[in-house]
């Protein structure tokens, strides 16, 4: 049912490849190894989720692909090029609200393109397309202050998509939303993704969300972290409502739950219970 580590690290040229990366932070008290050794490939057109106990370096992994952090060991490469800084072909969506409150929805979505230097008419055209895609048509001239949390996250997703990234990096994008909004916007994301088919690296701590959205789920161990197991989600796409109730969905969910529980107990100490 799942592929056991080590996995095939020889990807295609156009893939996102983690090659033996590690991350060590210098702190006041000494040195902390956040990520020990991670290798993996995000193949073209795949949706990959990463789950693991809190503090296991999931976000670190994502920031390294986004070029915001440099691994202290190994390399991340996209399209055969080593990532050395933020790239034009990656786009990020964060957990926190990252909309710019003084800009309209349209100008928020166009922000990434504006920074790239795309002419106004062109960037508005793609921004409007993305706004339609994420279901915010009619809100182009609203400001973030007038939107709900879920709508703001959709603005952030549209902004990322407008940059037509090879790789979409999402760091618990629905983490701050309530459960209902979260499920709803998850379905929306899947609908959008079916159309764009970018590579997605999706960080979450919600196992159900990971199973529902992904082609592969990487389970990370406690710190210093490695990819403990890569679970292939072999549920058919498209995944309509009710996918959650399939027996196979439950199986995958239970399996991931077992894997995560072991790691979480390591972090929280013996006898720790998960809510």
């Amino acid at each position, binding site marked *: 049912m799942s592929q056991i580590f080590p996995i095939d690290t020889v990807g295609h040229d156009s893939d996102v490849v983690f090659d033996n990366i590690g991350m060590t932070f*210098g*702190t*006041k*008290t000494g040195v*902390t190894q956040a990520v020990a050794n991670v290798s993996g490939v995000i193949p073209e057109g795949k949706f990959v989720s990463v789950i693991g106990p809190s503090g296991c370096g999931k*976000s*670190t992994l994502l920031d390294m692909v986004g070029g915001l952090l440099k691994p202290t060991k190994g390399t991340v490469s996209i399209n055969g090029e080593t990532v050395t800084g933020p790239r034009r072909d990656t786009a990020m969506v964060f957990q926190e609200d990252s909309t710019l409150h003084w800009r309209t929805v349209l100008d928020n979505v166009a922000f990434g393109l504006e920074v790239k230097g795309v002419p106004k008419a062109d960037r508005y055209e793609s921004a409007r397309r993305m706004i339609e895609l994420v279901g915010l048509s009619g809100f182009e001239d609203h400001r973030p202050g007038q939107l709900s949390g879920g709508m703001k996250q959709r603005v952030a997703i549209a902004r990322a998509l407008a940059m037509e990234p090879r790789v979409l990096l999402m760091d618990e994008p629905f983490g701050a939303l309530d459960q209902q909004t979260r499920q709803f916007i998850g379905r929306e994301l899947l609908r959008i993704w079916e159309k764009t088919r970018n590579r997605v690296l999706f960080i979450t701590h919600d196992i159900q969300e990971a199973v529902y959205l992904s082609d592969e789920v990487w389970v990370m161990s406690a710190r210093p972290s490695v990819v403990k197991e890569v679970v292939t989600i072999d549920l058919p796409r498209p995944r309509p409502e009710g996918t959650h109730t399939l027996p196979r969905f439950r199986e995958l969910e239970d399996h991931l739950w077992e894997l995560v529980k072991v790691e979480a107990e390591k972090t929280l100490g013996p006898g720790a219970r998960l809510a």
Partner: protein
Amino acid sequence: MSTDVTIPSGIITQQSADRARVIRDNVWRAAVLVALVLLWALLSTMSDLVASPADSLNALAERFADGSIYRHLNATLQAVVIGFLIAAAVGFPLGYAIGRSKFLGAVFDPLVAGAFAIPRVIFFPILLQIFGVGVGAQSAMAALAAVFPIMVSTTAGVRAINPLLPKLARSLSLSPLQTVTKIYIPAMAPSLMVGIRIGFSIAFINVIIAEFFAARAGLGLLALRAYGMLDLPTMYGIIVLLAAIALAGNLVLWAIERRLGNKL
């Protein structure tokens, strides 16, 4: 990312690192002070209008030695303290009431803001007519000047209180007095201290300004007289004394603020 690494030994290193930083900061502050004095000395060599630091401090010391300054020092400090106490006695309760009640807030916010924007010193002639020339008028001036900043920061402090705290007080059925003393005042302590600090500063400035306009005694009057007699060293000496008072007052209030902050 590095923040979630806190092991006990780390806290100790952190503390000693903080202490080292405080010492380093103080060394720097001393250096800035020395630089300012040197700049002053340099200016004094370049212009007749600037007395040298040494002359100024000597002139000040002389005033202390012959005892002639105490009358003025007393008058100024008295006016600041009395004025500040009146401002506090009026400003804190009113600011609190305006902050607690939505309706009072809606009524008085624009009035207080408007009054805050008026240069209160313009009313000094009227105070002179009511209280006569003397410490009374100066104290009233200080009170009038300091009361609005104190009100504004108290109101802001009440409004910034976590709305769960009053709920907590109700759930524990605290009496109104207990709610104020056990919940509101501790929760507001930081903004109360800000109000006190600004109130003190403004009271001080306004007393000196008022003394410039009309007074029987006071450091402002003394400085003006020294200037009139072209006794520049005394004038600069008084400026140094005023800076020292402003600094000392703020340092004391700051120390209280820190202590409160640590406790909370």
